[in-house]
Each structure stands twice: as structure tokens, then as C-alpha cells.
């Protein structure tokens, strides 16, 4: 199948068209892996690049992400028989005492767009909930967000909770938020700090690909 039309539909955020083209591709016996990688993830990468190049805004990227998700939903039941494994699983949330979720939501959305399975556990999340969810899902990455100088220390509390339970080394812990810095990341022994949502998604994907490659 020529993925040009599907790619364009994803980039323009046309949900109905994406669904129809994905169904058409399945009817034509196009390999599920190709539909996913060439028809859905590849155009989303173009959208991400356009955003990074200041050509489009977040709402346009969100529309594309929704269109991509609509396509993924159709082929998802066929993943296991097609030998498709998710790139990786991320547990993301805003730490205890902090109600801000816009930044976290942007990171979630961009990570999903990069093909990662993202479990958003919300705002004002207690330390132990991050650990429990990461363990339950056997996640690869835990992403922590804080917007206030007074809630930023809770990032350290979450990481200490992972340490206390002896599972710290199982997870790549990423942190972000307006007051967060690289120095703070080092202080609390986080694995990674990124300045913005686009960088966070890029780092997560690169980390997972690198890890998979050994």
C-alpha cells in the first residue's frame, strides 16, 4: 500500500480518514507492522519535527496524535500475532501536592506520538503510587513532573521510595517542570532531566531503542 494518503491524513489530524485508510490497508492484507510504522508512527514523527521547527502548534500536533491513536486502536488487537512489541512503557504523573497537569499532559502526548505506551496516573500522586504502578506494569520509564518550588522536593521523595523498596535500578527515572534543573536532577539521583516535552519524548525513545539494542 502507498502510505502517502494515510500519512497526510495523520498529519492533518483527520480521524475518519485515518480509520478508513487503515481498514482499507488491512483489507489489502498490508502487514500490520508496516501500517503501524510507515502509516502511523512515521507521519507522527514528521509532525513532531514540524513542531520542533516551529511550523505548527500543540493543538495541531494533538489533532495528529488523536488521528494516529484512532488508527493504532484498529490494528492494536493484531499486534501480538504480528510480533509487534511496544517500544516501551512509561508511567507518568505530577508529584504529591502539585495539581499542575498541562506540562505532564504534553509529555504524555508526545511520548504516545513517539510510539510509547504511556500510563498517566494524574496529579497530586503519592510517592508509593508511582512505585506500585511501575511495578504493576513492569514499566521501563517513570516520568515525574512538578511545577512549584515547594513541590519539587517531592520528586526526590518518589525516587527515595523506589530506592527504599529496592527497585530503583529497574527504572529509568525522568524528571521535568518549570523549577527543575539538571543540578536538581543530579542531586536527587534522577536519570534524566529534559527542558521541554519534545525533548522528553525524544530522550525516552532514544533511551529505549538504545537499551533494546543492548
Amino acid at each position, binding site marked *: 500500500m502507498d502510505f502517502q494518503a494515510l500519512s497526510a491524513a495523520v498529519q492533518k489530524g483527520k480521524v475518519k480518514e485515518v480509520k478508513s485508510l487503515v481498514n482499507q490497508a488491512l483489507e489489502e492484507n498490508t502487514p500490520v507492522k508496516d501500517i503501524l510504522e510507515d502509516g502511523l508512527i512515521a507521519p507522527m514523527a514528521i509532525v513532531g519535527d514540524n513542531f520542533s521547527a516551529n511550523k505548527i*502548534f500543540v493543538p495541531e500536533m494533538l489533532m495528529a496524535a488523536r488521528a494516529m491513536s484512532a488508527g493504532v486502536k484498529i490494528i492494536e488487537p493484531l499486534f501480538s500475532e504480528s510480533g509487534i512489541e511496544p517500544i516501551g512503557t512509561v508511567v507518568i504523573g505530577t508529584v504529591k501536592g502539585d495539581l499542575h*497537569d498541562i506540562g505532564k*499532559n504534553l509529555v504524555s502526548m508526545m511520548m504516545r506520538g513517539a510510539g510509547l505506551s504511556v500510563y498517566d496516573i494524574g496529579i497530586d500522586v503519592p510517592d508509593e503510587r508511582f512505585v506500585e504502578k511501575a511495578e504493576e506494569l513492569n514499566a521501563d520509564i517513570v516520568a515525574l513532573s512538578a511545577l512549584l518550588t515547594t513541590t519539587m522536593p*517531592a520528586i526526590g521523595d518518589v525516587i527515595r521510595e523506589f530506592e527504599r523498596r529496592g527497585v530503583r535500578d529497574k527504572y529509568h527515572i525522568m524528571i521535568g517542570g518549570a*523549577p527543575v534543573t539538571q543540578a536538581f536532577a543530579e542531586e536527587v539521583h534522577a536519570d534524566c532531566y529534559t527542558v521541554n516535552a519534545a525533548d522528553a519524548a525524544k530522550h525516552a525513545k532514544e533511551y529505549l531503542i538504545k537499551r533494546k539494542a543492548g
Partner: protein
Amino acid sequence: MAIRKYTKLAYTSINDFVYGSCPNPVTCKNGMVIGGGTVYPEINFTLPAMEATSETLPKAKEIYKEIITGVLDKALHLHMPGLVVEFETLPQYTEHPEWGLEIFRILRSTMYEYEEKHGLKSVLRMTPNDLREMNRPPIMRSGAYWESMLKLFTETAREGADFLSIESTGGKEINDEAIVNGDLRTSIFALGCLGARDMKWLWTNISEIAEKTGSAAAGDSACGFANTSMVLAEQGFLPKVYAAVMRAVAAPRALVAIENGAIGPSKDCAYENVYLKAITGTPIALEGKSAACAHFSPIGNIALSLADTWSNESVQQVKLLSGFAPVVSLEQLIYDCRLVNTAAEKGHALLMRDLLAESDCYLDPQAYIMKPDIVFEISEEIIRYEDPFLRTLNTAKKALDILKRAVKNEELTIDEREENWLDMLNEQVEDIPEDEEEFIAEMKEELSGKRYLPEEYGI
């Protein structure tokens, strides 16, 4: 409390619409007059990175004492005739009002002491947090969070808070998602239907407290709506034209506070205050270039063109090369105020206003809609309607028309990627029915299962 109605602008001439003065100034208990001819600095500050708990409260109190002493010394040193101090609490200090009150007392007593010993006049703005969104979906009119807020307002008002303010969050629970989707339709519902109803409830309560205690119900800010849009636009996440329209549509919501008892000076980060000043003639706080310590903005100068108090938004107590950041921040504010006050004393307020406005207004749509003549145009549209929803809807249409006209006339330059957005936003607002009940019914269906409780807004 009788509801005030505004059907005409407070000004008959745009030449009187300048910084530092307004038709309805506020006289404070110590005689300071806000909007009476002088722009005063308004300093706000916060703790460095630390947790706010019962264990850290003694340390926090020490830090607040250091801060207030530092800024009052600086005001004295620079011969400032007066200043406004804002205590905007951390969420924990509203959740535990007794902690907030302890810090308030330190600030208040130190300010009284400087007034008594050194003749330095200062007034204190008390800004508890709007904790109601801690419940998801938010519980707006009852419960422990609401009680904590009321308690902190009441106790601090009794103990000498001059101004009562808040950055209220009614409707924010659905607006957060709307913003990142560029969904102006839902934002109009959040601000014009939910927010306006909550403002009426909230400001009726705050005004009652003010009336009983002698404090002034000062005003609100749509920070979580319009400023979030502005900051996201600064980061390139949202179109600037969207943030500009969001600013204008925040004004009818803000007006509800004044209609229900607030008298100003309205809250510093509420850039929609400029429309309030035009309509109600009440004094306003604003912030711009000297609030870059807290957030960036494209309206650094123009914000000062109509300000009655000039704020830094907030700054942490951290050491810079010259001294602690709040003291640094106050020095910057004082010099800004000195300049514009001197210009006014020499009869050049109008020239200064226009220099401040024109140095920003053609470079960004968010600045353009704060241009004094544009403020009048938008304000006149607001008062054509009595109902907050119709005001909000028609303000959006008006703001879009103004921006399109400015782009067409080449008065305003916008990025190519912004141009489509003017039409896209226009399509969204044209699709909104003029009948509020019909709109609410549509939105209830669209937002079913989302994170808000209509009954908490009396819907």
C-alpha cells in the same frame, strides 16, 4: 449586597485613561491612595525550594521575616513613599490557615513597625490559594478546602489585611484541556458560563468578609486561563492570537468580581484588568518587564501604561550577586515607578503611557489588544451586554475582528503559522449559539464524563 451594573465606560476621554490614576481610587486605612496619582510598587515573594510542612514552618517564618525586613529597608533606602506587599500563600498555608496566619502576622507586624518607626507606608494584599480544585472534580461551594480558604480570608482580614485577592479557578478543570487543544469554544464555556457563576459566588462571599472587617475586596485573576495561554504561547506551544483572544475573553469574568463587591486594586497578573479599569474606573495592579523573574511575557512595557500598582508577580528568596532576589526585584519596581511618576508630575503621563504602549503593541497580538484605544473598543463591546456569557462570546468575536483588521491594515505582524488560526478561531465562535441555555446544553453533552460538576456552578 447590591449588584453594581456597568453600562458605560468610566472615562469620557481616552486621554484620562493613564497609569497611576482612575475615577474610583481606593483609600487604604493608613491613608495610602491607590489610583490617586501615584503608581506604587507591589512586591510579592515566595520561599526557596523547600517543603511547606509543620516541621519547616519555623524556618519558613524566619525566611519571611528576612524577606519583609529586606524589602522594607530597600523601600526606605530608595525613598519610596509607599508600597504594596502581597502575601500569596503556598497551597499548604491555605490548607492549614493557622500556618498562613502565623506568616501573615510576621509580615503585618513588621510593616506596622516600619510605618510607626520610619513613616514608611505600606499595605498588605492577602491572597489565599484557591484550593477547591484539589478535589477532582472540584467542589466549589462547600467542604474542607472552601472552609480553609474562608478562614484564612476572615482571620487575616480581621488582623489587618488591606486587600483581599485570589486567583480563582472556577471552570479551570475543563479549560486546562481546552487550552492545549486550542479549543476556544470550551474556554468560552469555562470562563463565560462556569467561571462567571463561580466569581459571583466567590466574590459575594469575599466582599461580605471585607465589609465586616474593613478590608477591601480587591479582585481576581484569570491566571490559570489567560496567563497559562500566554506562557504556552511564549513557549511556541500555542498561537499568540489565541492567547490574545483568551486575554480579552477573561475580562467579562473579571468584571463579575467588581459587580459583586470588589473595588480594586485588582490582582497583578490579571492583564484583563485594563478592561476593568476602562469599564469600572477602579484601580488595577499589573506586572510586566519587572516580573521576568517569574515569567516571560510580550507585554513588558505596555502593562505599565495603565497600572496603578506595579508588581513583580513573585520571586524566590534566593541570593543574587547584589542581594536577595525580593530586594533586587523591589529595587527594579521602584525605579520603574519613579520614572512614570516623575513623568506624570511633569505633565507627561499621556506621552509616557503612549511610549510604553507603542513600544510593545505592534509586535505581538497580546500587546496589541492592550493598546489603550483597543481597550476602549473591547470594553465598549463588553458593556453592550448584561449577561456574562454574551459578554464573553461577543468579546471573543470583537477581539478576533480587531486582530484581523490590524493584520489586514499591516498594523500588526503575525507569523505565517498564526494566520490560519484567526479563521479557525472565528469558525469556533461563530458556531456558538447566542442562547446560553442552548450552549450549556450542548456543552453538557460534549463534556459528559469530564472533570466538572455542573451543580457546583448552580447549573
